[in-house]
């Protein structure tokens, strides 16, 4: 039996959700973010590529896209920070029969805009966008994208053919961006009915035509809500900025050791500040020169500086994957990332210095960060924070939280009959079966 350690999460805590190849971990800290307490593993043995926190509409819900090699991919939720998880017996996130497709993995879960509290998006493998209009109870395939004539020509990259990043535009209600490996960036301006490839200027080194309309291997895309016409893109070879909502892209890879990398995060309070972790090359996807360096631009890609204080600068051949870096919106902002070697690094001062928050974990594939008690959502690389103006004040949050605590037991009981709670009871037989695995 796998023992899952639980941590007590309190109002004001900063929480990191860490998805790994063999389970999910939850790290909590006081606002100082100097010491982290870790809970987990949740879903031991399962790859957890997608994690999210939904704090809208009075919820405090964790969502996890988990994948068992044997039993398939499922979406689970927890309203008590992982003490119990609810998984529908019959998967709600599934490809319709007529598509002939089968869900392989959930790559991204993104609670929608703050003022659309029932809307949640999910990115899947094979590459597809799903949306829920009832806070995750039911899901629909976004047909406009699935029926796109380009789709049969999208190709799987090393990680599979995945839709890994979703950005509901902060200004235009009907605009949404998605990024697909390999397919590139697609944008809708009519709420998902039709989609256009938006890759002009983005390289595809692995194609005979280096600048095709689509087929680029985009690794991460970020947008800041204060400047929505601007986007930053970490490509499979190439680092770009768009100032026109993705219509065109300019190379901004000056002063970085490599323009290859996966992860990218935008500063929660400054639309000109972006963080990346460059890797040597496509052929050697590790930090260059054995030095673990985060690169930061504070002038929207005009220049980059290496952030190294506290990070190992010898024999550190690390890989930070596309969804494994996130910012928390405290002040000063926190920046956090996980490595394939199972380390989680954290900076409580916008990247000026770093400390190890956890190590010895399975390979990290996903990191999300949020402050408990502040409406918002877990901020991954592609998940830009909600606009400050749109946030209800803290007083309202506390009132809602208090009300929820009172009714918590009753609400949980009411949800159970429809679903299978699989925390402790199910952990026992599951772990027995896994003992056979290496």
């Amino acid at each position, binding site marked *: 039996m796998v023992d899952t350690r639980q941590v007590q999460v309190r109002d004001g805590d900063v929480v990191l959700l860490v998805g790994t190849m063999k389970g999910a971990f939850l790290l909590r800290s006081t606002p100082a973010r100097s010491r982290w307490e870790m809970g987990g593993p949740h879903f031991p043995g399962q790859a957890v590529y997608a994690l999210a926190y939904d704090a809208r509409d009075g919820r405090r819900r964790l969502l996890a896209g988990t994948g068992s090699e*044997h*039993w398939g991919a499922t979406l689970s939720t927890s309203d008590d920070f992982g003490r119990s998880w609810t998984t529908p*017996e019959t*998967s709600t996130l*599934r*490809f319709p*029969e007529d598509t002939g497709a089968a869900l392989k993995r959930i790559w991204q879960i993104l609670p929608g805009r703050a003022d659309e509290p029932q809307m949640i998006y999910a990115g899947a493998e094979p590459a597809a966008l799903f949306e829920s209009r009832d806070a995750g109870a039911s899901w629909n395939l976004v047909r406009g994208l699935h029926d796109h004539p380009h789709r049969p020509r999208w190709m799987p990259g090393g990680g599979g053919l995945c839709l890994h990043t979703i950005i509901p535009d902060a200004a235009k209600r009907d605009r949404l961006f998605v990024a697909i490996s390999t397919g590139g960036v697609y944008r809708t301006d009519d709420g998902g009915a039709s989609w256009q490839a938006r890759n002009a200027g983005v390289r595809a080194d692995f194609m005979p035509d280096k600048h095709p309309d689509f087929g680029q291997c985009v690794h991460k895309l970020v947008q800041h809500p204060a400047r929505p016409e601007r986007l930053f893109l970490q490509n499979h070879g190439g680092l770009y900025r768009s100032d026109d909502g993705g219509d065109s892209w300019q190379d901004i890879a000056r002063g970085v050791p490599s323009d290859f990398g996966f992860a990218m995060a935008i500063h929660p309070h400054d639309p000109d500040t972006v963080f990346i972790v460059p890797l040597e090359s496509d052929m050697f996807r590790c930090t260059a020169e054995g030095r673990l360096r985060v690169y930061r631009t504070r002038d929207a890609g005009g220049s980059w500086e290496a952030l190294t204080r506290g990070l190992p600068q010898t024999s550190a051949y690390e890989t930070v994957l596309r969804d494994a870096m996130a910012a928390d919106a405290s002040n000063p902002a926190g920046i956090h990332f996980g490595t394939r070697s199972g380390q989680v690094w954290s900076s409580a001062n916008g990247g000026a210095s770093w400390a190890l928050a956890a190590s010895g974990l399975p390979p990290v594939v996903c990191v999300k960060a949020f402050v408990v008690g502040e409406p918002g959502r877990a901020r991954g690389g592609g998940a830009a924070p909600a606009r400050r103006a749109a946030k209800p004040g803290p007083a309202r949050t506390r009132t809602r939280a208090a009300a929820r605590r009172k009714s918590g037991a009753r609400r949980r009981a009411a949800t159970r009959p429809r679903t299978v709670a699989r925390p402790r009871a199910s952990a026992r037989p599951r772990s027995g079966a896994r003992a056979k*695995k*290496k």
Partner: protein
Amino acid sequence: MRFRIPGPLRPLTGERAEVTVPSAPATVREALEALWSVHPGVRDRIVNEQGQVRPHVNIFVGVENIRWTGGLSTPVADGNEISIIPAVSGG
């Protein structure tokens, strides 16, 4: 028709390791349909949304893996035991 249920799926069968379905199916497909009419939660774990057996799930009729005997169309007879066993895979 009797099924042997692996540990990880027992939360979906009321913790039962063995489930007997009171019907006389002709094929593994019909037998499985009878199983998930009683325990619907196991369906999505064993097959994907297109009805295909997941690649790392093995189904045996007696000691024969249905992969080599006709897949879901493998005939079954009264008294057969069907075992659902996760493959040895992983890293």
